[in-house]
Every structure is written in C-alpha cells, then in structure tokens.
C-alpha cells in the first residue's frame, strides 16, 4: 500500500533558526496537503499543492512539491515559539480521495 514517510521524526531548534521537514511517498501523488497539529489539538489544514514543482508561501512558511510529485517539503524561516507542533504531510493517489497522512515531524522551539 501507499506509504508516506517524513523526516526528521523530531527536530529541536533555537528560536530564530530555520526548520525544514521532508515528505516522501512511495508512489506518485495526485496532490499533497500539509497540516499542523498543536500538542493536544487536532490537525489544522495549512495548504494544498497540486502541480509538479509547485512552490507556495505563507508568511514564513514555504511549501514545495517535487517535480516527480513523489516528495514535498515545508520550510519555516526564523522559527517562533508559536510554530511548536507536529507537521504532517498528507498525499492522495487518486484525485482527492483516500488521503494518506505521513508519519509527522514534531517541532520543538527553544526560546
């Protein structure tokens, strides 16, 4: 079955440092979504990427979809304590059905 892996599993950074999480799928994806889950909370939708090589920005967050549509990355510039949480990618093989969530990257920001 489809597998979506993320690295690293955990990341501790000093406040102000940059952070990147990588998402890799075993199969070509139709689209990829990114979610943030605060400790004790539920996943919150951040963004969706559909096109090969697509890059989208949201303030300090930059999302990229690979050319082969099998990988993606999320980069946070100058982390803040409010960025703490687990970041999940979620990919779909067919249209927008059967989205598989990745293993997640837990980000800890040290003030």
């Amino acid at each position, binding site marked *: 079955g489809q597998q979506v892996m993320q690295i690293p599993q955990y990341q501790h950074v000093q406040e102000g440092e940059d952070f990147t999480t990588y998402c890799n799928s075993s199969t070509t994806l139709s689209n990829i*979504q990114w979610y943030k889950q605060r400790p004790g909370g*539920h*996943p919150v*939708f951040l963004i969706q990427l559909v096109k090969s090589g697509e890059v989208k920005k949201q303030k300090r967050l930059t999302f990229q979809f690979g050319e082969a549509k099998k990988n993606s990355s999320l980069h946070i510039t100058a982390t803040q304590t409010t960025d703490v949480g687990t970041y*999940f990618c979620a990919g779909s093989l067919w249209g927008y*059905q059967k*989205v598989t*969530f990745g293993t*997640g990257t837990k980000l800890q920001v040290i003030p």
Partner: protein
Amino acid sequence: EAGVAQSPRYKIIEKRQSVAFWCNPISGHATLYWYQQILGQGPKLLIQFQNNGVVDDSQLPKDRFSAERLKGVDSTLKIQPAKLEDSAVYLCASSSLGNGYTFGSGTRLTVV
C-alpha cells in the same frame, strides 16, 4: 462558519464494551472522514463518505467497527466490542471536493 462538531470529547470504557461517536460536519461539505490517531502517529483513515455513500472503508476493522452517515449529514462511528488497542483519538473531518480537510476536536477513547 461553524466547525466540525464531535461528541463526546472523552470516553473511558472497559474492553468488550461498546461505544459510539458522533460527528456533525460543516454545512454543505459532501465528504466526511473518520480517522484514528494513535498517540505519536499520524491519522489513519478508517472510512470516507461522499454524501451518504461509502467511498473507502478498506482500513475499517469491519468485525468490530461500523459507521453510517444518514441523510448525508451527521455520522456515527461505533466500536463493538472494544479492544485495548482501540485506545486512540477518533477524528472526524469534512471537506468540499478539492479542498483541505477541516477536523473536529476529536474523541479521546481509553479502553481499560
């Protein structure tokens, strides 16, 4: 707009008992999902509804789990009988086709 409503927030039951969770999606969202999230893991899709029809239930343990979405709006997820390994957060989400999911706050189930 109102979010996805779920109840109860917490539930503690003994193994072999039954339990039911309820979800009310965002108005107008045709697609509804139930996910199971075990501590430290990513959400795992249990079942996906499009209106009141099942699109995917391939990972639903059908010997003990059942779900329905009557009239294409509210949904219930039932576990009968529960096992210790069913302890998890059960998340309901809804979406309109082609958009990201909106998750409810979830039901934290503890089976003892």
